[in-house]
């Protein structure tokens, strides 16, 4: 039996690496990949809890999170393509369309 706190600690570390990437990196696609990493870390914690509590609810949540992650990736990448066509860059510091 794998100790549940260790699974949760791994999930916390992966989530933190994702947060660091979102803050530090300036390339929009890499920022987006870091968000995917964070979603995956949350999935890992759900499965860890389901494993420790002998329940299936966590696994169902993972299923729904996966679908939402896929939808988010599709729409987000379409938006990114559109921004790249408009601005010709993927540096998140230069996306200031909503600033005034």
């Amino acid at each position, binding site marked *: 039996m794998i100790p549940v706190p260790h699974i949760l600690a791994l999930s916390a570390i992966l989530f933190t690496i994702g*947060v*660091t990437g979102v803050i530090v990196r300036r*390339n929009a696609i890499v920022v987006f*990949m870091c968000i995917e990493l964070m979603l995956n870390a949350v999935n890992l914690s759900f499965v860890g809890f389901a494993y420790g509590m002998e329940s299936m609810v966590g696994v169902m949540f993972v299923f729904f999170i996966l679908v939402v992650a896929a939808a*988010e990736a599709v729409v987000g990448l379409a938006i990114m393509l559109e921004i790249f*066509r408009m601005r010709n860059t*993927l540096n998140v510091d230069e996306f200031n369309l909503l600033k005034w």
Partner: protein
Amino acid sequence: MLIFFYLFAAAAVLLALGLIVLRSPVYCAMSLVGTFLCVAAIFLLLGNEFVAAIQVLIYAGAIMVLFLFVIMLLNLRAEVGKPMHIGVPQLLGVAIAVGILAQLISVFFSAAAKLGPLGEYSGQRVAEEGSLAIVGKLLLTEYVVPFEIISVLLMIAVMGAVVLAKRRPQQHVEEGS
């Protein structure tokens, strides 16, 4: 089994670090694929072969191929050569992330201390019936409404992506002329 867990955990953390350190987006994507595969192996060790399979199929397969296609479509070579800029904002960001890590670990360890087997799906029962059979049964009984709603969500996402990524007519005329 424990050794394999720590092995895959270390590999997942190292590859995830590669995601934020490497400069080329393609290398970042490859390193993220590696992380997803390691996490899928951990799901397998936890006795959840269904989640491991959809992790490999959807995350490491579909989503990352989508990312690679977008990287290929957008010419990002200009940004590859630049060294990583480390200034005060970056260090502040790392400090914030470490704070979040400390908070998460403290919360997880306090909750995990109280955690016990509450549900009816023990590891033995899951192994006997197969996690795919249990997930399928639950999806079509207890969770049938969310299941239908996410199918609508997926359809909306596909339509939204098509509308967003489609070339505008006036752009088309400009490029054609």
